């Protein structure tokens, strides 16, 4: 392992209360995340393209090219972008970390 000491010790900052708009967007994103976690194998089976863009109220779009997925995300309205969860394939294999 390479060990590098940062030149400056960094850490947690103060808390801040999210705005109502941030809270709505956060909750929508979290719903889409939970939707992805609960359904990802079924979603990947149904959408073999495998890069899934989930936004708004569980709208799912699938892309073969991840860059198309990112471009589509970037083209969404800013409010909608905040609700995005992107799911990517979880393929068999052993991670060597």
């Amino acid at each position: 392992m390479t060990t590098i000491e940062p030149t400056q010790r960094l850490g947690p900052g103060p808390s801040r209360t999210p705005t109502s708009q941030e809270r709505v967007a956060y909750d929508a994103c979290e719903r889409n995340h939970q939707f992805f976690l609960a359904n990802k194998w079924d979603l990947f089976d149904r959408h073999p393209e495998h890069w899934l863009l989930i936004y708004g109220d569980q709208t799912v779009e699938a892309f073969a090219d991840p860059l198309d997925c990112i471009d589509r995300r970037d083209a969404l309205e800013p409010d909608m972008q905040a609700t995005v969860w992107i799911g990517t394939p979880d393929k068999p294999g052993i991670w060597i970390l």
Partner: protein
Amino acid sequence: MTRRVEGHFQEHDRGNIAPPSLAPYLVVRFGPEPSGPAIEALIDTGADWTALGPRDALTLLGRSYLEIDFEVAPGRIVIAGFGQGDTDAVISPMELWLRDAEGEDFSVSLQVAICEPSPRTPGPHGNWLIPSLLGRDLLEWFDRTLSYNPPSATLTESAPV
């Protein structure tokens, strides 16, 4: 007040190679505001540094990620342990946002390693399969509770020394 952040466990299907495994994850958001892209990162006490894997780096940085020349980029380092062999990466200061159990957001400033994709082309291969890692540079600020039965993952901000 001590801040506490809840993570979650996720199961990974290893096909016919091995039984599914459970691993602890935390959702973090990157950017100047807490409404930045949400990334699901593996809690990895074995990692020195917090590292962005290719999938999440592409999600976060868009096409510009694939244009980084890791041979000459400022902040270039070589890291071991992110996949097989050595991996080139660039270190970049970033804000990670966490939401505590009270619903308050707070950020953690870190130097994050952005790993070079290998192979270059996005897909379900190479280190594109490796998740982003929350390393000890972030975890050192928290006491960690990980339980496999029932699965739960909690980070609690350590009291100042």
